[in-house]
């Protein structure tokens, strides 16, 4: 028995400067209710003004997914009463959505195309406010969102994971959304299995939740079946889904055109943007015997791809080094102070070992922030030797064990990350020799 799963993914356009219908900045780390105005708090008499950047950005995604993009942009009001909704309606698209009928290739863990699914529609809407405890935080109110709906073509939680990861990756590259921010997406999932009615899982906030909720729900459907369409909520702590409402009591949203935003006619001229997936396909086709993991790393950054990979004759060794650099960079790049393409030329040297590369990247990435702590190696050793843990590690190393070396170097680099691996080894060994003499 195979399940049929459809997705509704809501992604915030957090790369935009301003909210969808007012000029308030989009901010995640500001104090509650500081980035607000009369429009996003729904004050009587205020009128929305469209931030057209949201339309052009999402159109790029729609174009990428080969969708038909609407030539007229209009909005509708979706009415319901909930404390997070200041106006009693949400401004969304109902009569004419931004884009319809697209396709997305689903790839497996080797990034190879396994299946093509239909993307039914993409529409633009505004985020409601955030309720945290007793407080309504309107900083989130009015942040632009887009909703992407897939047809129920997916069969497993694994495919769902691939689709979501892929869409987020594309959004990141098209600069629609910064997916490093945890608040960037939410999803609703529709599941049915043969002989059973559909179940809707609402408001899943993370990839892990989505996977566990689907896994639980499919098992539940297989063992108990389902006679009527209904909605369920996933409870993280219990790893269970609980009944929320049946179709009969399903909220009837009233829709009316938003008359304060007149219809805009436009004729978008878009160019197809190449993403990591297309770059991957190209290299994979040229070098079918390369490890796909290396290729996936090689095509990670467009600038590096353009100057180091594209139109070059690639050897395995060359690819391995570049792949390592990028992998290390991504691993350490959480607090990226420098862009990969800027540091890359200084990293790429022939004959660098993995360890050396690791330290170099660390140096570059952390260097800026720790500039003031430029302390000499001998002073660091003098200080560290006072710590018993370090002392025992050092003596173990000196007695010929190699295991504590990582710890020792780590401790030293924590204090001065500008030191290089070679320098440290040299000093340690010299120290070793001296003490032996």
């Amino acid at each position: 028995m195979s399940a049929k799963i459809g997705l509704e993914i809501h992604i915030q356009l957090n790369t935009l400067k301003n909210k969808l219908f007012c000029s308030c900045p989009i901010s995640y780390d500001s104090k509650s209710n500081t980035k607000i105005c009369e429009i996003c708090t729904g004050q009587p008499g205020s009128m929305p003004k469209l931030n057209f950047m949201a339309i052009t950005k999402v159109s790029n995604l729609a174009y990428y997914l080969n969708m038909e993009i609407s030539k007229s942009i209009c909005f509708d009001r979706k009415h319901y009463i909930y404390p997070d909704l200041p106006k009693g309606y949400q401004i969304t698209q109902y009569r004419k959505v931004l884009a319809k009928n697209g396709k997305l290739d689903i790839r497996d863990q080797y990034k190879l195309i396994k299946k093509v699914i239909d993307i039914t529609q993409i529409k633009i809407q505004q985020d409601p406010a955030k309720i945290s405890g007793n407080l309504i935080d309107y900083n989130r109110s009015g942040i632009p969102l887009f909703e992407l709906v897939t047809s129920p073509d997916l069969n497993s939680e694994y495919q769902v994971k691939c689709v979501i990861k892929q869409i987020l990756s594309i959004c990141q590259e098209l600069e629609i959304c910064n997916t490093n921010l945890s608040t960037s997406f939410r999803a609703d999932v529709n599941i049915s299995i043969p002989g059973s009615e559909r179940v809707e899982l609402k408001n899943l906030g993370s990839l892990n939740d989505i996977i566990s909720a689907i896994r639980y729900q499919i098992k539940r459907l297989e063992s108990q079946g389902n006679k009527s369409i209904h909605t369920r909520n996933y409870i993280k702590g219990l790893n269970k889904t609980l009944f929320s409402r049946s179709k009969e009591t399903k909220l009837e949203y009233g829709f009316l055109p938003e008359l304060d935003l007149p219809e805009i006619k436009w004729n978008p001229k878009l160019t197809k943007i190449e993403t990591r997936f297309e770059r991957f396909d190209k290299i994979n086709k040229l070098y079918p015997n390369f490890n796909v993991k290396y290729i996936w790393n090689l095509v990670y950054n467009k600038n590096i791809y353009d100057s180091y990979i594209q139109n070059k004759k690639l050897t395995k060794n060359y690819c391995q080094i570049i792949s390592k650099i990028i992998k290390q960079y991504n691993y350490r790049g959480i607090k990226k102070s420098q862009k990969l393409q800027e540091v890359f030329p200084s990293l790429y040297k022939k004959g660098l070992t993995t360890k050396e590369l690791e330290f170099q990247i660390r140096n570059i990435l952390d260097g800026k922030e720790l500039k003031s702590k430029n302390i000499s190696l001998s002073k660091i050793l003098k200080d560290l030797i006072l710590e018993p843990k370090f002392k025992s590690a050092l003596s173990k190393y000196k007695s010929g064990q190699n295991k504590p070396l990582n710890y020792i170097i780590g401790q030293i680099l924590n204090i001065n990350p500008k030191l290089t691996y070679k320098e440290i080894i040299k000093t340690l060994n010299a120290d070793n020799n001296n003490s032996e003499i």
Partner: protein
Amino acid sequence: MLITYINSESNPKIGQLSGLSYVLKDIYITKGFLTSAGSQILEKYIPCYDSSVNTILKNKGAKLIGKSSLDEFSCGSLGINHNFKGINTPNPNNPNLFVGGSSSGSAYCVAKDICDFSLGSDTGGSVRLPAILCKIFGFKPSYGLISRYGMIPLCNDLDTVSIFSKSIKTLENVFINLCEYDNKDQTQTSKLEPLTKVEFKVLCQSKDYDFIKKLLPSLKIDVLDLDYSKINKFYFQKMLPYCFSNLNRYDGLKFNNSNHLVHKSYQNITNSRSCKLGNLIKARIIKGFEIHKDYLNNLKDISEFLETFRKHFKKGSIFISVFKDLELQKVYNKYKPILSEIKKNDAKLSISNLLGWPSLSLPLEKYSLHIFTIKCQDLLLLEFAKSCLLK
């Protein structure tokens, strides 16, 4: 009748409206001053921003002296509001007559010379009817000429910022100044047509023909009869769904100047909506919710009807309806109003809202004229009114 008195700054700006004082209907947002829309649900609402028209008037040197009473949320045509502070605006000329609404207080203040001009809002005759009943000028400009930003909406594509005055010169001056472009209102898309010389052609109902022929003997007059029952139906089909929609935000918890950030339960919302909204409003919200699903279908019929009507008009065409004072005294008698006639009159006025066309009520001796013409020809309409006054 003023709800709020406002002592504006002692040194007003100098501009084209210097020396004029004005009153705003209480649906125009005034920063720092109570804006109630005549409803208990907003009885403590002190807004944090200013409506665009108020900003314009202030910058041009006019002086705001207060906010005036109205039918709750501009719903109603008689000037009755039992729900808010017990304010029931009387007719300034005749205590036995309704004052007309919904901009009743703004009309009263002009008729009583409390201010030089006042702003009302016109969704289906809310300015022109009180102007007729108070014997002053009431002008509803074309839709999309004046910014609606900061005006509490009833039906967003019928609402029009409108002006009362006793002097047509003041009215024209204020109107031209208010046409300033405002980038906050996306529906302010119309452009005022400059005045050019044209020949006026008059259209009217068959029952007004003889009267107008006598009044304007030199002009060509054509008869154009309308199915008024249809206009009323169309007006409510357009207005009621948006009455429901625009009032959906008032839960009695937000906008009352207390800490509106607290997340309250549904029960509280239901309670405060039932207590604090008036009966007429509640009835309209319910009706609006019932018919909102048909809105888009109805829209087709409405535009078809309006299209056939529009065909009769060219540049220079003026449609005139006559309101005789003696008849009005019978129809709008406070103690035994004739509802069927009131409905007919409402239809005569609301047709120009459905079309978005400019219209004006023109007080003359023993009768008033209601005139309208095609969109953006506001200056032409005012010119025609002036020529009528000379006769």
